[in-house]
């Protein structure tokens, strides 16, 4: 249960096409992350799957059944919103019970489901509080709890960690991944943060301007980006692109550069010391910017000339059309 298929989905708002012919297969139980720069249509795609918005054309199938015209409530999905969307005038318990009551579920069943979810998420002591009395992390858990009690066929999460501070985001990331392992349900997770995508996903869907650029496992994306956009988007610091004479472009990640004679000659602009590593901002003689992440603590001065080398195996070559060669 929980396999989701998108067939030729198009969504336009007026004359603007925000999703252009997206097709996608999400197998049961997988944690898929939609990632892309803001405005790429990842949240829109999630809303189309949820049923809150209707596609302009195309079909959405859940477990082989066409649900394109089925209402959001009846698709059997649960959504965790970016703002959490907890009902401020209801207690945590009422928040979790609201959706179940609407389906006229017996009270005892509702209570046991809430109990179970509260235990799993360790929010038992919070059940009688209002959302306003909770911290950001607690609200996040409640929002997830509200999704869990519905026992959905799949979870949809719309940038669920973006309102948390960096430290909390780290812990919640791990917890969410663990939760996915425990529940074994399909999860679709939208984020603009590629670290979240890399650490959590079974597979990542990279989107740009309403088009799927690549779908693959995190490591495959990193090692074999399908095009220049994916190569530049995945991995931090950003991949260096050096234009060759024949119009082709060579990409090499900053981590893969070393200091050695006889390599690429660059002039240092600035160096950022990160402690264990040093990130050097430099320029080639053709004024192309180059980033190099070098081990240890280096202190090159501005204007100093360095020579950088790399393994040929770490090269990525892209054609003039941007596609991987």
């Amino acid at each position, binding site marked *: 249960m929980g396999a989701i298929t998108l067939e030729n989905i198009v969504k336009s708002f007026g004359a603007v096409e925000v999703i252009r012919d997206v097709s996608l297969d999400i197998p049961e139980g997988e944690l898929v992350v939609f990632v892309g720069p803001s405005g790429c249509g990842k949240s829109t795609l999630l809303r189309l799957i*949820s*049923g*809150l918005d209707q596609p302009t054309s195309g079909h959405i199938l859940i477990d082989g059944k066409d649900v394109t015209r089925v*209402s*959001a*409530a009846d698709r059997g*999905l*649960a*959504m965790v*919103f*970016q*703002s959490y*969307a*907890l*009902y*401020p*005038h209801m207690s945590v318990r009422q928040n979790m019970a*609201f*959706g179940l009551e*609407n*389906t006229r579920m017996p009270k005892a069943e509702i209570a046991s489901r809430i109990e179970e979810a509260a235990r799993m998420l360790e929010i038992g002591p919070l059940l009688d509080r209002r959302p306003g009395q909770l911290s950001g992390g607690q609200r996040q858990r409640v929002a997830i709890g*509200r999704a869990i009690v*519905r026992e959905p066929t799949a979870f949809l999460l719309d940038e669920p960690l973006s309102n948390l501070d960096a430290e909390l985001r780290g812990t919640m990331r791990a917890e969410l991944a663990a939760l996915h392992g425990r529940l074994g349900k399909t999860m679709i997770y939208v984020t603009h943060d590629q670290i979240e995508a890399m650490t959590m996903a079974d597979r990542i869907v990279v989107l740009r301007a309403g088009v799927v650029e690549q779908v693959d496992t995190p490591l495959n994306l990193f090692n074999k980006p399908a095009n220049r956009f994916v190569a530049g988007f995945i991995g931090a610091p950003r991949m260096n692109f050096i234009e060759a004479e024949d119009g082709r472009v060579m990409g090499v990640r900053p981590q893969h550069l070393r200091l050695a004679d006889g390599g690429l000659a660059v002039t240092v602009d600035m160096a950022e010391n990160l402690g264990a590593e040093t990130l050097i901002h430099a320029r080639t003689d053709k004024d192309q910017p180059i980033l190099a992440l070098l081990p240890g603590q280096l202190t090159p001065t501005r204007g100093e000339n360095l020579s950088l080398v790399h393994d040929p195996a770490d090269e990525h070559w892209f054609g003039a059309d941007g596609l991987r060669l």
Partner: protein
Amino acid sequence: MIRFLTRRRGATGDGHGWHWTDIATWVWLIGGTILMFGPAVWLVLSSFKTPAGLAEFPPTILPYAQETTMLGDQAKPLFEVTLEDGITVTMAELRRVGIVAQMVPPDQPDAEPLKININDRTPVRQMDFATENYTQPFLQFDFVLFLRNSVYVTVMATIITLLTNSMAAFALSKYEFRGRNAVMLLIVATLMVPLSVILVPLYSVVSAVGLINNLWGVILPTVATPTGVFLLRQYMLTIPDELLEAARMDHASEWQIYWRIVLPLAAPALAVLAIFSVVWRWNDFLWPLVVLSRRELYTLQIGLNSYAGELNVQWHFILAMTVVAMIPVVLVFVFLQRFITAGIAGTGLK
């Protein structure tokens, strides 16, 4: 001097002593307090005076009544009398002929009455609250009826106002639909149509639907307030759409979203509107005056005005009834003033 014209400068206590602007401020504030509260206080004090007390000039501040004593089975008024030998004694008046009164000491009712010039005596008075000013209208006049009509109109109109305005505001704030702007424009336009402009045709419409001389004829035309729709819509726009979407995924129908999500969250705005609606409807005058011509249907305001317009104006009753008409508004003022002033500052509605 900068302190008078600029803001948030201490009137006192900033170490510079008293400036003329400080004095002007306090004169204005205290004068203002007397001018604003004084008339209402005077009304309340006057309402406890007997007709004789009200007719006095110059009037006393507090209500006084002449003391009486029981002589036989009759109450006789008491006076301080200055006798020819200069001694002052308290005596009761038996009867009065012209400027001469026949008086006896109250403890010797059967004594030979003395003939006293009325200029040689002053009435013995004590503070006395004429509560019959309040009890009599309730017992004898239609006052209870008026009060009941007013309460009925106010409560019904407020409930319907809250319900219909909030439903319309919900539709206008949370749904995209064709014609939404047209509906908004229509409602804006009504701001330009005060009652006095449509008085005559409104009367004919209300009479066509058979609601002349009916309290519902007073209630219905007032409930679709554009200000109410505006106030609520403005507030509902601040409720995040994600909450509604979450509810939709939670199997809530649109009606449930309105009832269980949006209405509870709009409670502060609803409270402000409720307060205003109560004050508006309680105070309405012109429209009920037009619609209601049968005395038993009069609201308090119309009833009061009709008493005041009678040939023989009974001020002692009118003043007391005016106080009663003022009570709900004063209660609202005392308990909810903060709410109202914040509401006005925020929305400019009245």
